[in-house]
């Protein structure tokens, strides 16, 4: 039983990171119908930025964290302006390929700048554990869970209660109509990319104490975030986090109870099952076109 709870908590913590990356996919997808295959790599880059600020420049953890988030938000805007905006409106395949290309580029550049070693960020939570009876919970994992909850709530409120959030949802439904209604679609898209890169950075920094930051971490975790996003329904913010947590728990349970090898495959088997049985996911809603 104790093992089970222990696995559950570490699964939830890992799942929250998947959820945060999936949240990035969902934000961009909601606003522009673009699926950003470079989301994991934005997370990796955010982690490296934080490492530069905290580990190399010796800034305070929180200042470094904020600096990394700000820098990455700017980077997200630049990436949107340079790579995505010129091809908005073209078939989805082109945009997928462009973001795959961007991911390749970021991975290699990060490898050139920061090397290929595993890097570690010293955080206030990396030491210490919370003991409840005989249950031992590490602070770093709890911090990931807490931060995910906060971010998810903030983003949910932002999308559903603020004018800007409504504008984003409108431009996702129909860019042209939104433009006619006076919504500055270009600026909206740019802001969405900034937010999505910032969320990715949070994931990267929170992840740093659990698995180390290296240049391929984005690819590995980015691919795991797809099942999370699909499970939650691709356009739903709470769905992304719930999907992420489910995938994380399934993965960690499969690693513990099933023979070796299932751990890496389980998320994808779940993904295929979801796509076959309920393609709109847990929280998505299926829209049909009238002909």
């Amino acid at each position, binding site marked *: 039983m104790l093992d089970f709870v222990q696995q559950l908590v570490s699964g939830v913590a890992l799942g929250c990171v998947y959820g945060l990356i999936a949240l990035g996919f969902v934000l961009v997808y909601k606003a522009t119908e673009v699926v950003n295959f470079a989301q994991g790599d934005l997370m990796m880059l955010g982690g490296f930025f934080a490492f530069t600020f905290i580990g190399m420049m010796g800034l305070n953890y929180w200042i470094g964290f904020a600096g990394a988030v700000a820098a990455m938000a700017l980077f997200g805007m630049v990436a949107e302006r340079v790579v995505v905006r010129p*091809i908005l409106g073209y078939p989805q395949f082109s945009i997928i*390929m*462009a973001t795959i*290309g961007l991911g*390749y580029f970021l991975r290699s*550049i990060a490898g*050139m700048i920061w090397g290929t070693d595993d890097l570690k960020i010293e955080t206030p939570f990396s030491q210490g554990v919370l003991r409840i009876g005989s249950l031992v919970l590490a602070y770093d994992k709890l911090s990931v869970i807490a931060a995910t909850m906060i971010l998810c709530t903030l983003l949910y409120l932002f999308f559903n209660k603020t004018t800007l959030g409504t504008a984003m949802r409108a431009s996702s439904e129909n860019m*042209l109509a939104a433009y006619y209604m006076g919504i500055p679609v270009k600026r909206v898209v740019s802001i969405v990319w900034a937010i999505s890169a910032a969320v990715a950075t949070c994931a990267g920094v929170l992840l740093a104490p659990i698995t180390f930051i290296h240049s391929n971490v984005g690819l590995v975790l980015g691919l795991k975030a797809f099942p999370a996003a699909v499970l939650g329904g691709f356009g739903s913010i709470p769905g992304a986090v719930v999907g992420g947590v489910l995938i994380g728990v399934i993965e960690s349970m499969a690693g513990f109870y099933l023979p070796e090898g299932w751990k890496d495959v389980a998320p994808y088997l779940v993904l295929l099952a979801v796509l076959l049985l309920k393609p709109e996911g847990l929280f998505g809603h299926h829209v049909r076109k009238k002909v």
Partner: protein
Amino acid sequence: MRFLFKTDYEDDIKLFPHSGYLVSYGILLALLLIAPFVLSSYLMSQLVFVCIYATVGVALLILTGFTGQASLGHAAFLAIGAYTAAYLQKYNVPFPVYFLAAGALTGLIGALVGFPALRLTGIYLVIATISFALIVEEILARWESVTHGNEGMRVKTLSLLGVTVPRDSPTFYFLCLSVLVLTIVGTLNLLRSPTGRAFVAIRDSETAARSMGVNVALYKVKSFAISAAITGFAGVLFAHKLSFISPEMFTLQLSIEFIIVILIGGTFSLHGAVLGAIFIVMIDPFLTYLKDDLPGMIAGIAATFGAGPATAGNIQSKVASFASLNGLKGAIYGIIIVLFVLFEPLGLYGRWLKIKLFFQLFPLYKRATFKRQKIYVKSERNR
């Protein structure tokens, strides 16, 4: 400019619309046939890889270019073909048999993948094919009684009708070339048949195709099966060329390379697969060249422009250290993909068509001829 006057349907579906085609493709074939006796063994080896990549490219074009179903899982089909060959070879099955068996098995698995894919479009299909490829990769690593797991499998030298064909012999090159040519001719004929027309109809509009009486499900599965089978054939050749296969060769990276092949070549014509394959395979020799010769050349140029020997040496060492950076290949891939998507969406073959049209229409060429329509209204979610 030559005007083709077509009087009936037979004129329209000719493989060689006019004599110019026969001449130019005849010259190309002759050059390819004398290539092994002229080129160095390294370039020959690259040429074999071009043939294999181009075969996969044609397979992917049938699925992605002509049926409109994107796939990022073709490395898995290639792996299944390669492993079938390696496994059957252990039981002394002759080459023609396991070659066909690999194609048949891969085609069957392709059809099995195609059934679930019927319900998926766009991004979901891409994600599903990625998952399929990752699962296959894991199975290859774990099913040790058949695949020997991560140790990999040794592939014996090809023996065709009692004659051994080493992997760097001209005969092996001719084998790969003939597989490529047969695939291309077969695909050209396929695209002129009702099946091929149905593929294109599905790509252009599924709803319209269905309302014209095209059995969308059947043709999508057919497209998957044909594409997978061709990739399986290529897999057999790939296994023989490498003479050793292991799961880490068939990663997502390889699937992406195949997509890059058709993206760079152009997704609307079979020429694209070949041009893209040449491009992708030749990146490696180009990078080697960059490492070996470029630093000296740049230093030489700097010296002619009046830089002192110390500065020139400095420049040389800087360029050399840049060119030998580890991630350079990945960065160049990334930049190439982004640049092609942004500025040359029709690929290399599209560029060739533009240049050709420019000279044909000389003073009247307009750039807008090739402009693509941007659609902001259509939501890919609502279909």
